[in-house]
């Protein structure tokens, strides 16, 4: 071994209910290197780092620091061991100043006016690493990138020798990202080690020395960046083999199910999230929408389902103009929505399975007469769907929250498909589900396609998109990078489009 490893994680395994997030993952970090941790969403990057930072305890495996095994029970332990973390969502008191935030919980500060002493050190460190920020400024007056600097300073002042950055560029503009990279290089020169969580290939190539790729909770490989390229990394990240083989019969698509023309929309934070998106979905066709999380998929789905306003552009559903119509009107027009947030939005956890099955239709006959609900009709309907969709529930009166993830999704599909929709908007329909539930949901989507529904399948699972879609659209930065027929699509091409390159 040419360079002694500073930190090693050996065979780390961690399982959550229903999913193995890390399966015997090994990672070695050397002093003075920027080590990128690359993988798709759900690959297990954040879990691995949460274990290193003491937020979770591994089920198996060990952590070695300078060759000595350590147990990290809490973030406090991690800090004592010289491990610092800059979280994706900053943990700062908005009304306090930079110095006050840094002094908060910092050992060795005087009990009175603790921030005063810190101010000088903040300025010192800021100069050394190029992290200029006014220690007297209140947090709310700072830009996001400045807040990130505060988080980095916080970690450095606590003596972090290893700094973990969780998708640090996701909140930055390209220029701000370049500044951050300069800071990271400076830190490297000072002998710090940096672990950089990302799913962006350009960033890996730009700043990392070595890169470790995770896929579906497992280690793929660790390679020096100088000896690899984006194409190779893409292949490692998305995998080579198609794991699911589906029976997909060729089908000639019919009329138009959905047409989106030059749609613009903003995110919750008011930033442009969709910039002139146009595409169509025909009946009897599945259009897969691939892309890295946070590139406008959520906003796209919400615009189409009546949950978000379009600023510009037109949405036509089954040949009717549905631009900026309400969720109820969109549903009534024949659109099924399988939401991304299954438990938070897709069901009412405290209400019964039967009530959840009529969540969309409780206000129409035969489920009500005037104001009165017809409980018998509802219960008969529920029993029929439970049998038809094989929802495992003790009774229709069981609260929906006691169902497993797969059965909750079956419930949602049963409800959404029962009206015979002409258009299906499915957002991440199988994320976090086990193999059998995933297969069943794939089969149900294909069956609807057979029967002539148009399907928009939004997913981060490239295998799923490739296996199910007739055509694949790739979204990046709120724009469609390209739409290719699935038969002509290859993983590398799609992967590159997902990182913002047009074919």
């Amino acid at each position: 071994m040419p360079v002694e490893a500073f930190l090693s994680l050996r065979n780390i395994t961690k399982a959550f209910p229903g999913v193995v997030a890390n399966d015997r993952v090994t990672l070695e970090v050397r002093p003075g290197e920027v080590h990128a941790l690359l993988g798709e969403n759900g690959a297990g990057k954040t879990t691995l780092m949460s274990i290193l930072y003491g937020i979770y305890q591994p089920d198996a495996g060990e952590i070695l620091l300078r060759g000595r095994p350590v147990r990290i029970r809490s973030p406090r332990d991690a800090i004592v061991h010289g491990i610092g973390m800059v979280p994706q969502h900053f943990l700062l008191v908005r009304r306090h100043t930079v110095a006050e935030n840094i002094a908060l919980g910092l050992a060795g500060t005087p009990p009175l006016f603790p921030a005063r002493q810190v101010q000088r050190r903040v300025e010192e460190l800021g100069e050394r690493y190029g992290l200029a920020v006014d220690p007297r400024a209140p947090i709310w007056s700072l830009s996001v990138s400045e807040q990130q600097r505060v988080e980095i300073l916080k970690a450095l002042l606590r003596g972090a020798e290893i700094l973990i950055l969780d998708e640090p560029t996701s909140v930055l503009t390209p220029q701000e990202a370049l500044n951050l990279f300069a800071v990271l290089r400076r830190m490297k020169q000072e002998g710090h080690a940096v672990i950089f969580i990302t799913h962006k290939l350009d960033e890996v190539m730009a700043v990392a020395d070595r890169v470790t790729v995770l896929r579906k909770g497992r280690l793929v490989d660790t390679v020096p960046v100088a000896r690899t390229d984006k194409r190779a990394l893409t292949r490692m990240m998305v995998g080579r083999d198609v794991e699911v083989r589906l029976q997909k019969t060729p089908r000639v698509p019919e009329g138009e199910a959905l047409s989106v023309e030059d749609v613009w929309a903003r995110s919750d934070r008011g930033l442009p999230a969709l910039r002139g998106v146009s595409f169509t979905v025909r009946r009897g066709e599945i259009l897969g929408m691939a892309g890295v999380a946070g590139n406008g998929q959520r906003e796209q789905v919400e615009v189409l389902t009546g949950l978000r306003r379009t600023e510009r552009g037109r949405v036509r559903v089954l040949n009717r103009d549905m631009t900026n119509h309400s969720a109820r009107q969109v549903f009534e027009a024949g659109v099924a929505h399988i939401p991304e947030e299954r438990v938070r939005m897709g069901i009412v956890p405290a209400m019964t399975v039967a009530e959840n099955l009529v969540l969309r239709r409780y206000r129409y006959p035969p489920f009500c007469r005037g104001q009165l609900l017809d409980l018998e009709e509802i219960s008969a309907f529920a029993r029929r769907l439970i049998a038809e969709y094989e929802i495992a529930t003790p009774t229709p009166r069981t609260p929906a929250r006691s169902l497993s993830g797969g059965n909750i999704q079956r419930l949602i599909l049963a409800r959404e498909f029962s009206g015979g929709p002409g258009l299906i908007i499915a957002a991440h329909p199988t994320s976090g589900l086990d193999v059998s539930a995933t297969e069943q949901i794939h089969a149900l989507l294909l069956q609807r396609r057979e029967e002539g529904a148009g399907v928009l399948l939004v997913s981060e699972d490239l295998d799923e998109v490739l296996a199910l879609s007739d055509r694949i659209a790739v979204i990046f930065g709120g724009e469609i990078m390209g739409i290719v027929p699935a038969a002509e699509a290859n993983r590398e091409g799609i992967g590159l489009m997902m990182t913002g390159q047009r074919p």
Partner: protein
Amino acid sequence: MMRVGPFEIERRPDPPLTWILGVSLLAILAAMAMSGVIFWSYGVDPLRAYGVIIRGTLFNAKALPEVVRFAIPMLLAGVGLVLAFRALFWNIGAEGQILAGATAATWVALFSPVPDALKLPMMFIAGFVGGALWGFIPALLKLRLAVNDVISTLMMNYIALYLVSWLVHGPWKGPEMRGFAFTNEFPPAAQIPLIAGTRIHWITLVLGIALALGVAFVLARTRLGFEIRVQGESSDAARYAGIDPMRTTLLVMLFAGGAAGLAGVGEVGGIHHRLLDPNQISLGFGYAAIIVAWLARGSPVAAILTSLFLGFIFTSGDVMKVALQMPARVTDVFNGLILFWLIGSERLLFYRVRWAPGRAVREPLPVGGAGADPGPPGISGGDQ
């Protein structure tokens, strides 16, 4: 699941009914134990005090109807609060809504040209409308301007309080009252009949029970009730299903305010027969109704029982004053302690602590219920 030393803490979203009852009872006992300390520091043996209280209320033919008399306003206000809390509107303003109802009823009784035969029905209607308006304002403020409902409803209480105070000291002060800050006495046609020998104004009582049953029916069997439940349990799911939060919240608050307004009608029409100092019209019934609703845990029918329990506490305040020479306000202390313990025990309801020493081999984690439990923060984030 979380591990603290040798214990495993597990969340259970659907605690069994016996567990809910047991924990609630334990909370009340804890409150009684703490009040015992207050009795003791007051120089009264707590055991003797509780003995005197129980004998003086439950085993006393004169005092027993008083339990019902106090339960009436808290039942009406409490049923309204059950509904508001189900829709996640934190109405702390039942006190003000009671006063608004009392004021509206007084206007009908004393100053309106309504014929005698219609006086009582019109008083109830006016009282409902008055309370409903008082509840409507904060609802509108929340929906239109995102004003915090707890604060606005609480502040509306003080507006109502000073409004009533001004009325009885000023424009409505009764010339027959020889300088007291009362309005004139209501004419006989505007007095709610009592059950003989008691202070139970039975019309209001029947209204309270009818509303409790009615709300239970609406929640379980109607479209509106379905919408209220969806809205209260998951606002995201309500958005998804296209339920209009404006409509449900406004309707809920009109009803909750109106029900509290009816309680005010009962107090001025059945007990006092005049509008008087706001602190005498309502002895904090609007606040006690919060406990009624909390103890009832979302069930309007259970509010009938819990309002009787609070009625017992209010009656015991009278006993403490007379038999133990303690200030009647001790009931407020007791009520506060009950609410404190109830809310404090809330966490206990939904978690189970298990003794499981050693880092034994974990069973394979079941998939069941995983989706329902958000788990510790961070797990639910996409990247696992």
